[in-house]
């Protein structure tokens, strides 16, 4: 069964450094998402992406964040200058269409900012 994959599974970085989190969505899916889960808190929406552009973003998704689909398979989340409060589990998800469809989640990348 196809699944969403994410790399790396864990990343430790110094405050102020740039990080890129990578995701490979399910191949025939058209909508892509990033969510995050700060330890002990609920999962929060960051951004949705369709047709090579952001379709919606949350207030969390400020200028330090960006997303890109650099080729036909990868979907990346870049944090330009990490802060301590960016430490969280980051989940990528994809769905075939927008409405009425399940979003399938990857296993997540645990980011720790020191």
């Amino acid at each position, binding site marked *: 069964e196809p699944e969403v994959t994410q790399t790396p599974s864990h990343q430790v970085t110094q405050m102020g450094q740039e990080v890129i989190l990578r995701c490979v969505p399910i191949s025939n899916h058209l909508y892509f998402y990033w*969510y995050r889960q700060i330890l002990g808190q609920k999962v929060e*929406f960051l951004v949705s992406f369709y047709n090579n552009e952001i379709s919606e973003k949350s207030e969390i998704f400020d200028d330090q964040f960006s997303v890109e689909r650099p080729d036909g398979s990868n979907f990346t989340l870049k944090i330009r200058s990490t802060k301590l409060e960016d430490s969280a589990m980051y*989940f990528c998800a994809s769905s075939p269409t927008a409405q009425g469809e399940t979003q399938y989640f990857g296993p*997540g990348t645990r980011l720790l900012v020191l």
Partner: protein
Amino acid sequence: AQSVTQLDSQVPVFEEAPVELRCNYSSSVSVYLFWYVQYPNQGLQLLLKYLSGSTLVKGINGFEAEFNKSQTSFHLRKPSVHISDTAEYFCAAYSAYGGATNKLIFGTGTLLAVQP
């Protein structure tokens, strides 16, 4: 604005006992509803979903949920739990209104702790 509420942060239960995890949503429009499970140190796995049709939906691992529009609830149930069901369970929703946002709104999660 939409919101999803899971009132129980933790539900302890003995093995082979029934369990119900509560979820209520608030929305001015129809919503699609989902339950995801997160096992320790793992990602989110879809348990079941309600999009339309029958209000009783069955999912994986013997779980089921009932959509109740009048009570704006989507409670998750299992008649007999196993130790392996110990996990965090998240209820989530997004608007069914065509053209609206498809971002999932999650509840705060319920930790199901199954004891022998």
